């Protein structure tokens, strides 16, 4: 998963009639607005360097007009950079000749366009099969495969319609199916879900994640929907005015925005769904390691704990309330701790999203233990943590408990 | 000049003269233009047009007023009707000895086969005149579609029984086509046999020998049979002399007696016309240049056509 597949180095793009003349201005750091005003040229990208790894879903976000589409179009060289390199699998794609470029586009990449880019004179089915047609796949085979994808995107019955007869979202799905139908290694998806309703959208998201997991496709995905980005993205890059502001894993961006821009960007996200338990849980302070009731009581008394998690060499055992143990007869102290001694089983997994654990956490008197698949106690989740994470404020640093409450 | 113009110009304001596209007609039109403008103070406009368009227009509209050189054989029906209806009238012959229509072969062929100068020789060497458009046949180039000579050619073709010798009468489509076929043949020294007429610049340029058909011209037979569409039994005859007339619209003739007098007398013979055409050909001159050349070089020819004062006025303008 860590091999670099697409690498971009010092990419500059200036739109206009004589970009080379004014590229120095962009390098000198003049603002996009100034450059536009002075030269009539629009700054598309400024000094972008990136590394996209094989098999990841890489999400690109940013304000409208920040250069996302421009960037993604460089990857299959629909746009030539004003300066800089785009390297795919070690190959600088600017050095490809026409035939190589064609082969590269056929095999390596397929793209979903922001404005769909459907062939108005092809039926839906022919549109979907277009990538295969280009590769010379026999008509029957490509129709079959296209039909499969047509059904997958929920357009069964529309195969003989023309794009102009479809609704916006249906057209977008045709574009999507067309890109998926080619089995290209890298999928470039420019706001590929923007016209879809939530149901189909989440289906498509699942499908995408499945594709990536099963077939190890690399997916470069532009979206304006932070929830979506957080849900499917392995890493997220944030652009502003053609510059790369931050790249990182979703939680990282959410919890450690580098500046106000990113912070305001992520402010509105549905944290309950975006954040997983491990990103907000606290290290366990109330931990004992006992086998018998006596040991447990002793340890708890020493540490002055009313409540503790018992973790021994077999991993997490359960939560213990001291009061309850102390009610027991001393004779039982030497007994092994058993089911009855533990609190009713309420554990959450570190990978759960917060939304899934809201009720458990709120219902529980004490912080909920966070236990991973191997049965190891990873941390605890208190109501306070949850409230803090869910309220609209960003958490400056989840490691250190902050007291700020709205 | 002014005084002359004033005295003469009372009824001659706007005159239109047809300028046909072949050289002699163009020459005439320009000569008339210069003389009418400078001698009679007319305001002259030349309008181009081919024979029929001009004739029709004259008959139906009275414009152009003057057709200085009209080969009337070609439009005889229309013209006669116009005369009958009082729309146009003949004024004088612009070619005093008439035009010469004939069948021709190039001189270089006659040099090679002297017998080609006769119809018998042509028949004998029929195989020379290959028709590329219809392999296996020989070709006699006829007269363009719709021209009156087309009918005459067809009838003569029948009379000469050329078809029996493998000839086919080919329609060149237009005067230009006909001229082109001669030019091509001549430039490449290829065989050519067909109809043309003189005086023309073309025949000045490409030396041709007229084919002796072995019979006299017979105007009577020509006008009753050879020149008619439904001629039952044509005889071989030479072409009679072609009438080349100056024709004016009655509208004009009734208004400009002085000019009419001039038009009635002015005329050139074939010899001089050929000379002039040769000069024009040599200089690739158009009618206008030719006209000035004529007026400058041959005053003795044209001064008698007009009164003295007019002649002086014209000379002054040259």
């Amino acid at each position: 998963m860590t091999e670099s597949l697409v690498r971009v180095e010092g990419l500059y793009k200036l739109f206009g009639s004589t970009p080379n003349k004014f590229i120095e201005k962009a390098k000198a750091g003049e603002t996009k607005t100034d450059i536009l005003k002075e030269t009539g040229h629009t700054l598309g990208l400024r000094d972008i360097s990136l590394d996209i790894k094989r098999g990841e879903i890489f999400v690109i976000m940013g304000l409208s007009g920040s250069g996302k589409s421009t960037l993604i179009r460089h990857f299959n060289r629909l746009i030539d950079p004003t300066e800089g390199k785009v390297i795919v699998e070690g190959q600088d794609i600017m050095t490809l000749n026409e035939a190589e470029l064609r082969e590269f586009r056929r095999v390596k990449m397929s793209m979903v366009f922001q404005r769909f880019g459907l062939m108005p004179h092809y039926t839906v089915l022919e549109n979907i099969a277009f990538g295969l047609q280009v590769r010379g796949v026999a008509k029957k085979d490509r129709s079959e495969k296209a039909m499969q994808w047509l059904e997958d995107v929920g357009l069964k019955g529309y195969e003989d319609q023309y794009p102009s007869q479809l609704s916006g979202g249906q057209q977008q799905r045709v574009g999507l199916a067309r890109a998926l139908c080619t089995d290209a290694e890298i999928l470039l998806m420019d706001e590929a879900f923007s016209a879809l309703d939530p149901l189909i959208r989440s289906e498509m998201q699942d499908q995408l994640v499945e594709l990536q997991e099963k077939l190890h496709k690399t997916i470069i995905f532009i979206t304006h929907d932070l929830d979506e980005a957080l849900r499917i993205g392995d890493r997220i890059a944030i652009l502003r005015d053609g510059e790369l502001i931050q790249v990182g894993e979703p939680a990282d961006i959410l919890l450690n925005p580098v500046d106000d821009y990113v912070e305001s960007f992520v402010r509105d996200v549905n944290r309950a769904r975006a954040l997983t338990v491990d990103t907000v849980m606290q290290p366990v302070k109330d931990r004992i390691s006992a086998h018998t009731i006596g040991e447990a009581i002793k340890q708890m008394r020493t540490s002055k704990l009313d409540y503790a998690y018992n973790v021994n060499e077999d991993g997490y055992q359960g939560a213990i309330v001291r009061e309850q143990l102390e009610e027991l007869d001393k004779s039982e102290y030497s007994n092994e701790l058993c089911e009855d001694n533990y609190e009713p089983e309420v554990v959450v997994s570190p990978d759960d999203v917060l939304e899934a654990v809201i009720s458990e956490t709120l219902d529980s008197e004490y912080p909920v233990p966070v236990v991973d698949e191997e049965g190891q106690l990873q941390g605890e989740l208190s109501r306070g943590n949850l409230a803090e994470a869910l309220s609209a404020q960003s958490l400056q640093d989840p490691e250190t408990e902050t007291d700020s409450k709205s | 000049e002014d005084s002359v113009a004033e005295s003469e110009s009372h009824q001659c304001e706007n005159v239109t003269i047809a300028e046909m596209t072949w050289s002699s007609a163009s020459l005439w039109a320009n000569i008339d233009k210069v003389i009418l403008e400078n001698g009679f103070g007319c305001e002259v406009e030349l309008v181009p047009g081919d024979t029929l368009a001009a004739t029709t227009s004259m008959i139906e509209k009275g414009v152009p007023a003057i057709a200085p050189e009209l080969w009337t054989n070609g439009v005889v029906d229309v013209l006669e009707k116009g005369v009958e209806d009082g729309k146009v009238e003949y004024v004088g012959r612009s070619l005093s000895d008439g035009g010469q229509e004939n069948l021709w072969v190039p001189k270089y062929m006659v040099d090679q086969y002297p017998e080609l100068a006769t119809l018998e020789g042509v028949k004998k060497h029929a195989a020379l005149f290959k028709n590329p458009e219809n392999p296996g046949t020989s070709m006699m180039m006829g007269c363009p579609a719709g021209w009156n000579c087309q009918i005459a050619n067809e009838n003569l073709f029948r009379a000469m029984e050329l078809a029996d010798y493998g000839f086919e009468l080919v329609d060149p489509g237009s005067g230009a086509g006909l001229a082109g076929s001669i030019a091509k043949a001549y430039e490449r020294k290829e065989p050519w046999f067909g109809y043309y007429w003189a005086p023309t610049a073309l025949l000045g340029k490409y030396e041709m020998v007229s084919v002796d058909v072995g019979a006299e011209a017979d105007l009577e037979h020509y006008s009753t049979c050879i020149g008619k569409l439904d001629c039952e039994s044509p005889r071989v005859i030479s072409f009679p002399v072609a009438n080349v007339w100056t024709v004016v619209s009655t509208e004009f003739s009734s208004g400009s007696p002085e000019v009419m007098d001039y038009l009635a007398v002015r005329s050139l013979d074939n010899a001089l016309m050929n000379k002039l055409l040769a000069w024009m050909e040599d200089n690739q001159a158009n009618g206008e240049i030719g006209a000035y050349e004529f007026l400058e070089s041959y005053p003795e020819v044209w001064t008698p056509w007009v009164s003295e004062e007019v002649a002086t006025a014209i000379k002054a303008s040259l």
Partner: protein
Amino acid sequence: MSWLTEIPQLDRSGMTSLKKIIDEAFKGFSRQYGEGIENFFKPLLDFLIFFEKLLLATPWWLMIAILVLITQLAARSVKLSVGVGVALLCIGFLGMWEDTMRTLSLITVCTLLSILIGIPVGILMSRSDRTQKVITPVLDIMQTMPAFVYLIPVVILLGIGRVSGLIAVVIYAIPPVIRLTNLGIRLVDKEVIEAADSYGVTSMQRLWSVQLPLAMPNIMAGINQTIMMALSMVVIASMIGVRGLGLPVLQAINNQYIAQGLLNGSAIVVLAIIFDRVSQAYAKRSQHNIGGQND
């Protein structure tokens, strides 16, 4: 069973009388109304004469200056303007100035007339399929009926001369601009039209602000073709009494003067190119950036 090899035909006498009837009918018509029709066209004729005289009377240097100026104003291209100037000087130098002015005069009027009539007709045609169905065959006839054929009646009606020439040229040259205006408007993106409609445009506003600008490339192609065809008719016009560059061409043909034909033909071509480049450059300049400058 002669019909097996011979197509059943009207016999000769039937044919003749049919032809005679038509001919006589037309000639009768001409005698009766010719005068009226001629008078109707009188102002046009006067204008044509006036315009030609004007061009001829203008000193050559002034004329060249004016033409270069017009080119410069329309096209804003120094290269083109200089080219026009040089071409005109060459024409003058080779002795074709007067004929060129005559042709320029007629063709200017013909082209303007064709465009001024053609574009509205094209617009009308684009409005309804029914109109299109009616007009299309008329255009077909105008373009393929040999000019000579309709020139016969026109000459009978109006005589030879400028008006007949103008009618012949306009009839022949007008169809492309009509057809391509129609096509261009029909090809305008439906979405844009719909957007305009949603703001309540009148049909005039729709036309001016959306349809015509977006149909411009096609309309300009039509104008280009119209100019080309008008100029290709110069020779035919000179067959019925229009002076200008056509006449020397005709003379050249009859005498097989290659050079004379070529020179005068080239002058016609030069006029065509001037007309075309100036109109195209003007259109392009006044047109907006539709395609965008994707790189």
